[in-house]
């Protein structure tokens, strides 16, 4: 399986669990719990007990933020997409003109198999197992330049402090240029 950053695939994506939590029980309807603290206290009381949670999920197209995947983990990092039809005309135009930093417009011509005009949500990163991805068909792909712009927005939004990394890379670059 060869995956690349910027590609869009269908995937099984759960909604982020939030209150009320639903706990699966073998013979009956799920037990609803209104707060996280009740579950934490209960499970800590029960030693190494675990519950099975009922979490709603959906088949959604996702954009791979990285094509890097280690076969020992099978984990992938992706962004959820937002359909532009859910926005007002004004909002939609704002996204299409790349004036809305949190939504990265996916050019329709590059995503011929994506049924609806969409944007990658910078605010909604998800970790996915590769088995949750339908890899039969890529729905399209951002090019390298677009991916760089998207990653730049992602790093800015989440306020990753890359100073140390940048300084180290600049020094390494200087060193290699001198050695050339």
């Amino acid at each position, binding site marked *: 399986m060869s995956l690349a950053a910027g590609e869009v695939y269908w995937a099984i994506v759960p909604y982020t669990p939030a209150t009320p939590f639903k706990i699966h*029980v073998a013979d009956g309807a799920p037990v609803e719990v209104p707060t996280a603290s009740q579950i934490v206290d209960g499970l800590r009381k029960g030693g190494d007990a675990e519950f099975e949670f009922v979490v709603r999920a959906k088949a959604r197209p996702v954009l791979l933020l990285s094509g890097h995947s*280690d076969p020992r983990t099978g*984990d992938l990092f992706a962004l959820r997409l937002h359909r532009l039809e859910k926005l007002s005309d004004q909002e939609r135009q704002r996204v299409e003109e790349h004036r809305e930093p949190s939504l990265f417009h996916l050019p329709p011509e590059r995503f011929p198999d994506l049924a609806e005009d969409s944007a990658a949500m910078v605010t909604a990163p998800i970790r996915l197992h590769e088995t949750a991805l339908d890899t039969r068909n890529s729905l399209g792909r951002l090019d390298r330049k677009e991916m760089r712009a998207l990653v730049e927005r992602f790093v800015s939004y989440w306020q990753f402090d890359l100073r140390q990394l940048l300084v180290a890379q600049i020094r390494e*670059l200087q060193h290699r240029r001198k050695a050339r």
Partner: protein
Amino acid sequence: MALHSSPIKSNDVRLPEPQPGEALVVERYSAEHVKAVILHPDDFAELQGDSELLDDLTAASDLSDLGARAHRIAESPEGELIDDEASVRRLLGL
């Protein structure tokens, strides 16, 4: 991906000769539409070298065996699954 080159034979095109440090910008219709940029081979070699260097610097680091093992452990259920309603309610104080 580093900047790559696509050779064309000099007999197939007519080009001016750029000086080192000079970029000849070939415009189509106006200065806003640049069709090509012609560089001296030395400048192109430097640009290509920089591109390769940058590409090397952004190479991903591999996951160590320890990291992979820690990931596997974190993702493996390790406790007893409680799924009978009475026990669930008792633990949650419901």
